[in-house]
């Protein structure tokens, strides 16, 4: 099993009564809530946490892209990756992802990922995503063409990395007379590709066919991951091979303290900050982003098993929405889910909601010293 520290870079300073006056922290949530003076400290705390991951023995860190929201104020994950590139030496930096349809032209992604890969001597993982529903409002990109733009940009980027230029690209969404990006990535034929997904069958089939890695998008009931990961493994078999553990990643909030009670006490307020303030709006799905048929299904099915609908601590624990407890409890649960659901990459969110820096660091330390070694023993594959 490999361990990644995943960071959302949430804005931790929303007012206590935020949810009473605001429907969402996305799209329309005024950036007057942002305070650059506090922001300076917030960014640097979060960067300290990501840098500490290397010393603590994590295999990598994950950064991600969101726009115009308090949920995560990391609009350019590539900038954060660049900041980490020279402050770390060994760990992988997974950028999951660049929301390809938001880049025009998509060479921007090919160039920046290649730059980072060369600077870090090949430590970059390129995550590629369609982008969240709210981002189609925020960036004025037509959601009807989200998937088309994603696939076209993806194929173009892969071609840039694996073929010599210059060449022309005249697609439906991007028209480029000369494609000839410098630099090229150091990893050959290209950096590993991670595709996050919520469980669209088409996406999982595609990832399996391409032999990329599938990362389950978080905040769903554990049953959803089990079902999706099983589907993905079957899809790889259909494509004539067996999924490697490294092809599956589970992204989950984790909190470790000395005892179960203490862990709950320390963690729970930040969980509700996240659910009540930050999460609301992530599921805004603009028309056309998902086909009308899938939409009808999503409304009925998946939303029932989504963190936003959860109201009690008992549901959190039962659904595996977050893994919280003493080192023994956390270890036991992760071994159980590791065996039962199956994943080779554990992407842990260890600073959650408005959790302060010291608490996040304590959590990371305890996890790294008390939990990680036991999990490495329990899941020796690809260590």
């Amino acid at each position, binding site marked *: 099993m490999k361990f990644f520290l995943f960071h959302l870079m949430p804005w931790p300073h929303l007012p206590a009564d935020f949810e009473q006056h605001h429907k969402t922290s996305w799209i329309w949530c005024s950036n007057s809530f942002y305070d650059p003076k506090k922001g300076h400290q917030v960014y640097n705390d979060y960067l300290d946490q990501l840098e500490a991951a290397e010393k603590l023995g994590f295999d990598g860190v994950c950064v991600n892209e969101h726009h115009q929201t308090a949920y995560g104020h990391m609009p350019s994950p590539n900038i954060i990756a660049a900041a980490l590139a020279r402050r770390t030496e060994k760990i992988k930096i997974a950028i999951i992802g660049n929301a390809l349809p938001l880049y025009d032209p998509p060479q921007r992604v090919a160039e920046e990922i290649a730059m980072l890969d060369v600077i870090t001597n090949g430590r970059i993982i390129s995550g590629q995503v369609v982008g969240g529903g709210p981002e189609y409002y925020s960036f004025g990109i*037509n959601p*009807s063409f989200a998937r088309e733009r994603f696939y076209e940009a993806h194929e173009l980027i892969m071609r840039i990395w694996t073929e010599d230029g210059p060449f022309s690209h005249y697609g439906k969404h991007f028209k480029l007379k000369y494609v000839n990006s410098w630099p090229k990535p150091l990893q050959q034929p290209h950096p590993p590709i991670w595709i996050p997904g919520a469980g669209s069958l088409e996406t999982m089939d595609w990832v399996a066919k391409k032999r990329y890695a599938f990362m389950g998008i978080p905040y769903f009931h554990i049953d959803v991951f089990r079902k999706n990961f099983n589907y993905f493994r079957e899809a790889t078999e259909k494509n004539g091979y067996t999924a490697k553990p490294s092809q599956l990643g589970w992204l989950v909030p984790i909190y470790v303290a000395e005892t179960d009670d203490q862990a709950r006490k320390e963690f729970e307020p930040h969980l509700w900050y996240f659910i009540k303030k930050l999460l609301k709006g992530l599921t805004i799905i*603009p*028309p*056309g982003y998902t086909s009308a048929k899938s939409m009808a299904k999503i409304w009925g099915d998946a939303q029932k098993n989504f963190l936003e609908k959860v109201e009690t601590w008992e549901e959190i624990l039962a659904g595996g929405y977050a893994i919280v407890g003493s080192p023994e409890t956390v270890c036991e649960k992760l071994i159980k889910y590791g065996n039962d659901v199956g994943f080779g990459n554990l992407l842990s969110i260890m600073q959650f909601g408005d959790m302060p820096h010291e608490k996040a660091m304590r959590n990371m330390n305890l996890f790294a010293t008390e939990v990680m070694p036991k999990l490495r023993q329990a899941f020796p594959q690809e260590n």
Partner: protein
Amino acid sequence: MTNPVDITIDFVDVRGKKIQVIRGGEGETLLYLHSAGGETFPLPFHEELAKHFSLIAPAHPGFHESTGIEQINDIEDLTFYYLEFLDALKLDKVNIVGTSLGGWLAMELAVRWPERFKKIVLVDAVGIWLKDTPMAEMFGLEPTELRELVFFDPNSDIAHALVQDEPPEDFLFLVLKALETTARLAWNPYLHNPKLHNRLYRINVPTLILWGEYDKLVPLAYGEAFNKAIPNSKLVVFKDCGHMPIFEKTSEFVDEVVKFMKSN
């Protein structure tokens, strides 16, 4: 007094694409182009119009059972799709009524081929952008918010019938398809073509502009702007009415259309 008329639905094949058409009545042809709301199943206003005209009301591709949306990426594609429709039905010098999105489409057709139209009625039409009076957001709304936006009386039976809180699955599917197609055509630029305003001078046929005084989606300022830009036009405003006069002022709407079409 006029007798009740039969309203029928059939399908027209236009170069391999299937277009659903509501028809009814006799007399001079009236082509009705529907709004983003997708009034593509028989409704009272269809029947009222069919008492006076030979009504032809197609469903745009992507709406209801009309096909061909895959080949349409913007309003210009839809305009040419409708040129093919006019040709297929041999409609020449036709009278046209368009509500909202349908009004925009009518104007896109008329600025290109004004000779194909006899008279035009625009009802709370979109299609241009007034920077001092932005159109409201129509996407991503809860049913309550959508009723508030579109209807003068959001609590009316018609508002609840057309925007249902918990629609049955087949109706929900139509609503989602309608929104999806509208987004495809009009997500950005939002509900307008930046080139249209400067082309409106080309509409040289008599044009009646009907507007709900309390249209919160497309404020009356738009009706006034169309009236100013289209040479031979007249603006009539319905009191106590929102974005959808066809529902909230059905008989007044039909009366205005009849009066206008029958006048010299």
